C-alpha cells in the first residue's frame, strides 16, 4: 500500500495526536492487555477523523456478537426509548467512562453472537447511553468542542430521529388547526434541511462526513425541543419569543464549531447562513403555532 506523503497542511489537534499514539501503542502491544472501559457498542465501519489520513477510529473492540443483530434489535425497542429517553438524562447513565473509549485497534468484525442473546433492556440501555453521551458532547460545554472530528466519533441516527419526531409531535400538539400539516411541514423542513445543509457544505468544498453531519444537526435540535415543550405549556407570546430566542442561540452555538471548521474560512459565512436559516424558521414555527 503506497501511502503518498502529502504533508498535513492542517496540523493535528493535540487530542487527535494522542489518539493516534494510543492506537499505535495498542497495535504494537496487542489488544489482549486492555479491557474496554464500558460494555462496547456493536462495531460499525470505522470513521476517519476529518483532518488526517484514514486511520481506524477510536472505537472500543467489537463485542462477540453479530453487528447486524444489534441493529435489527433496535427497531423492536423503539417504543420504550421514547418514554425512557425523557428520564435518561436524569437517571444514572453508565458512568463517565463511556466517553473514554479504551482505544483499541479496530480488528474488524469478528463473530459476535452476544447481542442476539442479551436482554432487550441491555440493547436499549446501550443505545440510550450512546444518545446521552453524544448529546453531552454536542450540546453541552465540554473540553472537546474545539476538535469537531472528535465530538461525534460514535455518531448514530437514533438521537436525531427522536428529536425530530418529538419536535414535530410537540408542534402538532400545540396547533389548534391542521395538525397533520404542521407535523408534515416540521418533519420535512427538519429532515430535508439536515440533508440539504450537509450537501451545501460538501458542495462548497468542505470536508465533513455525511452521516456524522446529519447526526450532529439532529442533536443540535435538542435545545429547540426543550423550547417547544415550554412553549406548549405556556401560551404567552412574549415568553415564547424569549424562550425560543434562547433555544435558538443555544442550538446555533452548538452547531457553529462543527460547521465552521468544515469549510474553507473564506466560505464560513456561506456554510453557516443556511444553518441559522433553518433554526430561525423552526423557531418561528414554534412561536407561531398556537
Amino acid at each position, binding site marked *: *500500500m*503506497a*501511502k*503518498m506523503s*502529502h*504533508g*498535513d*497542511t*492542517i496540523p493535528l489537534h493535540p487530542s487527535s495526536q494522542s489518539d493516534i499514539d494510543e492506537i499505535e501503542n495498542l497495535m504494537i502491544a496487542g489488544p489482549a492487555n486492555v479491557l474496554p472501559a464500558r460494555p462496547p457498542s456493536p462495531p*460499525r*465501519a*470505522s*470513521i*476517519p*477523523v*476529518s*483532518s*488526517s*489520513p*484514514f486511520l481506524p477510529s477510536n472505537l472500543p473492540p467489537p463485542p462477540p456478537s453479530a453487528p447486524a443483530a444489534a441493529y435489527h434489535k433496535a427497531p423492536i425497542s423503539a417504543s420504550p426509548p421514547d418514554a425512557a429517553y425523557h428520564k435518561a438524562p436524569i437517571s444514572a447513565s453508565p458512568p463517565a467512562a463511556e466517553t473514554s473509549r479504551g482505544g483499541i485497534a479496530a480488528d474488524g468484525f469478528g463473530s459476535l453472537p452476544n447481542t442476539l442473546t442479551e436482554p432487550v433492556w441491555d440493547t436499549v440501555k446501550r443505545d440510550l447511553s450512546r444518545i446521552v453521551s453524544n448529546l453531552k458532547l454536542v450540546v453541552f460545554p465540554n473540553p472537546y468542542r474545539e476538535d469537531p472530528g472528535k465530538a461525534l466519533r460514535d455518531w448514530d441516527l437514533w438521537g436525531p430521529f427522536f428529536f425530530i419526531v418529538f419536535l414535530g409531535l410537540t408542534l402538532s400538539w400545540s*396547533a*389548534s*388547526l*391542521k395538525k397533520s*400539516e*404542521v407535523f408534515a*411541514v416540521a418533519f420535512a423542513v427538519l429532515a430535508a434541511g439536515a440533508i440539504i445543509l450537509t*450537501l*451545501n457544505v*460538501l*458542495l*462548497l*468544498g*468542505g*470536508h*465533513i*462526513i*455525511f*452521516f456524522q453531519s446529519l447526526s450532529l444537526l439532529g442533536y443540535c435540535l435538542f435545545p429547540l425541543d426543550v423550547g417547544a415543550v415550554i412553549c406548549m405549556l405556556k401560551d404567552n407570546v412574549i415568553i415564547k419569543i424569549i424562550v425560543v430566542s434562547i433555544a435558538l442561540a443555544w442550538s446555533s452555538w452548538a452547531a457553529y464549531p462543527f460547521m465552521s471548521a468544515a469549510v*474553507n474560512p*473564506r*466560505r*464560513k*459565512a*456561506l456554510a453557516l*447562513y*443556511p444553518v441559522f*436559516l433553518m433554526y*430561525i*424558521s423552526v423557531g*418561528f*414555527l414554534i412561536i*407561531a*403555532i*398556537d
Partner: protein
Amino acid sequence: MEEDYTSLPTSHLLGSVPAVAAEDKTGGAARESSTANLQNSPPANGGYQAPGSPYGGDEQATSSWKGACSISSYTPYFNVDSDIVVDRLITSVYPMNDFTRKIDGNPDLYGPVWISTTLVFMLAALGNCATYLMRKRNEPDIVWNFDVTYVDWAACVIYGYALAVPVAFYFLLQYVGCNASLIRLWCMWGYSLFIFLPSSLLLVAPVEIVRWIVIILAGAASSWFVALNLKAYTDGSDLMVLIVSALLLQFALALFIKIFFFV
C-alpha cells in the same frame, strides 16, 4: 492511478469519506473537485486519496461531470466565497447591467438556491403576520392563526418560478439560435429574487397604499434587472419580444406575491 480508486468495490465502507489534506484555493484559478464522493467510498488501501487533479479553464461542466449522483460534478457551480456572493447580491439590487459580466466566468448556484429558500420562508412567515395585522384592523377580535399552507404555496411558487422560467427561456433562446447557458440563466433569475427579501419585510406594514407602492417599486426594479441582463446576455440580436415577456413575468410574480401573501 487516482482514477482507479473509484472502481474498487467498497460498498461495505458506507458512510466514510476519504480525507483530503491539501486544499489550495489559489484565487480560484485551479479548481479542485471535492473528494466527498458519496457513491464511491474509499478504496481498500485505507481510504487515502490524494486531492483531485486541479481543473483549469472555464467550461468545467462537461469535463467534470461524474454522473448526476456524484457531488463532485456539482462543486464547480458552488465555487464562490462569501465576499463574492455579497457583491453579487448588492449588484442585483441596483439594476445595472454589469451583473452579466460578473457571473460570466463563474456562475454560481449557491445564490439562487438560498435566496429562493429564504424567500419561501419569509413569504410564509411574514405573509401570515401581514394578513393577521391587516385583518386585525378591520375586525379587532380576530385570533392569530398560523396558516401552514402558506409554506406550501410559497415553496411551489418560488421554486417553480426560479426553476421553470429559466429553463423555458433557455429553450426559447436555443430555438431562436442564440447560444444560451442554462446555469447563467438560473443564476441571474435566482439573484433577481433577492430584492423581494427586504421588500417583504416592508410589506408587513398594514397600510394598503404603502404595500402597493413597495411591491410596485420592487417589481419594477426586479423586472428591469432581468430585462437588462437578458438583453446584455443575448447581446445585440433583436429579441425584444422575449425580453419584454421576461419583464412582464417578473412583474406578474411581484403582483402575485402581494396579492396572495400580503392580502
